[in-house]
């Protein structure tokens, strides 16, 4: 898997060569109809670190995130070219079973979107369709451990039969994270998971991300730079559909190489 060579015009990337990559993307272009949303992006990320994608609105950071679990397939007119590998295996081929890919690469969305079913059913659905639990007791165990890992168990253990939509916004988002965890993925993609939440709920999610680090490869898209600085160890900065710079979070925020990165993090635009 290390045989993949980086293209010559790769922007400053102090990371990809230095890590054991969980996922690798090479020369990704994404088109929505005739409009190009992503231009020639190549990036690796590892399991050890939380990777943050930052950039101004419309820069394509969510679009590139949705390439990693092929969610762009569901958008009419979207076309992705390039190569993406999970543990060295190409996931872009049409022959690949996206159902299995999405079990290995979970996703949490910007707006909390629990199923309008019970809290229990929200967690149990994924394990059930993938046949991860042999018995009812087994499934109960999966649900409990997912809720515990998402730090939600103590708050909901007495109301598992209540609808997931009765929870507060922050609880709903942690329920969505628990739902993603329940199918035991290897990667969790988070698309601005805190943008609809208040600061207290945001702090809880950030703690949770920190707890989950190392167990899952986590990629978080955020336009809150403080959040990127708090939760991530690696940060990629995107602008106009291209990756401008990718480095250790501390370096990106204190000593960026690119002028555009510097302008963005110092609030010149964005």
């Amino acid at each position, binding site marked *: 898997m290390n045989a993949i060579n980086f293209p010559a015009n790769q922007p400053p990337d102090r990371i990809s060569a230095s890590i054991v990559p969980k996922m690798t993307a090479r020369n990704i272009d994404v088109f929505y109809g005739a409009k190009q949303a992503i231009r020639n992006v190549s990036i690796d990320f590892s399991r050890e670190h939380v990777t943050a994608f930052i950039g101004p609105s419309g820069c394509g950071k969510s679009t590139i995130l949705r390439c990693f679990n092929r969610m762009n397939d569901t958008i009419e007119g979207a076309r992705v070219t390039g190569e993406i590998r999970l543990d060295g295996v190409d996931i872009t081929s049409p022959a690949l079973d996206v159902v299995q890919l999405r079990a290995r690469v979970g996703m949490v969305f910007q707006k909390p*979107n629990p199923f309008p079913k019970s809290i229990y059913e929200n967690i149990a*659905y994924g394990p059930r369709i993938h046949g991860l639990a042999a018995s009812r007791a087994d499934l109960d165990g999966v649900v409990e451990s997912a809720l515990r890992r998402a730090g939600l168990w103590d708050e909901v253990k007495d109301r598992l039969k209540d609808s997931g939509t009765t929870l507060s916004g922050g609880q709903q988002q942690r329920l969505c994270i628990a739902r993603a965890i329940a199918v035991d993925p290897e990667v969790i993609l988070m698309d601005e998971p805190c943008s609809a939440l208040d600061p207290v709920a945001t702090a809880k999610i950030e703690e949770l991300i920190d707890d989950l680090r190392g167990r899952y490869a986590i990629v978080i898209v955020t336009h809150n730079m403080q959040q990127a600085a708090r939760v991530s160890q690696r940060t990629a900065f995107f602008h106009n559909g291209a990756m401008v710079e990718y480095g250790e979070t501390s370096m990106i925020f204190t000593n960026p190489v690119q002028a555009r990165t510097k302008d963005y993090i110092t609030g010149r635009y964005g």
Partner: protein
Amino acid sequence: MSPARPLLREPTDWSAAALRVRLARRHRSERLFRLAGLGALLLAGLFLAFLLFTIIRDGASGFRHSEVAVTVTFDPQSVRSGDYVGLMQRSARALPVAGDVVSEGAWVALREAVAADPALVGQTRTMWVPARSSIDLLAKGKFDLAQPALSRGVSDADVAAWRALAAAGRLRQGFNLDFLTGSASTSPELAGIWGAALGSLLTLAITIAIAFPVGVFAAIYLQEFAPRNRWTDLIEVSINNLAAVPSIIFGLLGLAVFLNFAGLPRSAPLVGGLTLALMTLPVIVIAARAAIGAVSPGVRDAALAVGASRLQTVFDHVLPQALPGILTGTIIGMARALGETAPLLLIGMRAFVADVPHGLAAPATVLPVQIFLWSDDAQRGFIEKTSAAIIVLLLVLVLLNSLAIVLRNHFERRA
């Protein structure tokens, strides 16, 4: 930057006269709009009240009928030979009035009495049997007797017979069970609605069995799976157009396809149901597509992101949420099918069927067609039957709509 332009405007004076005038105008137009809305509501309510009032006024008497007391001697000879018609005629002739006063079908009551109690044979009993229609109408006060005989619609002989019967205490009014349990008849006093109601039931059963699954699956495919291209656009436009096609066209289609091409039996609920299914299908497809399209995309994303296939996403998450809307649309389509007359006339369901339908391929008629046939009948007695049948049809419709609301609330609570 042009220095001539001040950065700040003068502060707005909210108490200026012009602003107060604008405010008053805004309030006035709002009041006017509310009044107009209330007026529209009132007008609609008035029409409804008028409709219900006239139908109930004309139809309420259709649920009652007059009976004549006839003294019948159940002689063993007549009973053994099954000559109840003759027995009835002889007994009616013995009444102290001139002319026919009992219904042509009154003998059925004698046969039923003997069947229920064989010990009657050889005995003499007073039997209450249905009166003839003109006597019945006279008893209900449907004629203006102040008018001359020629223009009031009933002969002097009938009036005299009615007066004599009433004076002899041989006339009474009661609930007309025959109307609810009988079928079409040439005599208004014997005509009933059950045959047509059963015909409607069988027809609607076929309609829903075909239109609901086909419509919902077509909607799911179009909405969730079909690629967006010129062909699906064409199909969408066609479905929308089909929903607006006059129903009689579907009758012609049913006639051409089911009767002439497929050779299915005429006047049968099977063909009626198939024809109405064609008519209802686009309504269900459109309602189901709208309901499926209204399910929030977040739920689809969530299901896909935990690795559900598209089929699982649709059946586990999208469909349960869309079900209340789909059911509402389906019941509206069914209610329309229940009230439909024109296409059924073309496939022969306007035939006179004097018996309840014995199956899906047997001749039958349906409620609205029965109403149409009765309203078309020259006999005066069918006026009240027509309105009474409309009351039955409206009650069935109200029942169906209530069912829709109950089902929708049930599924909404579960979702």
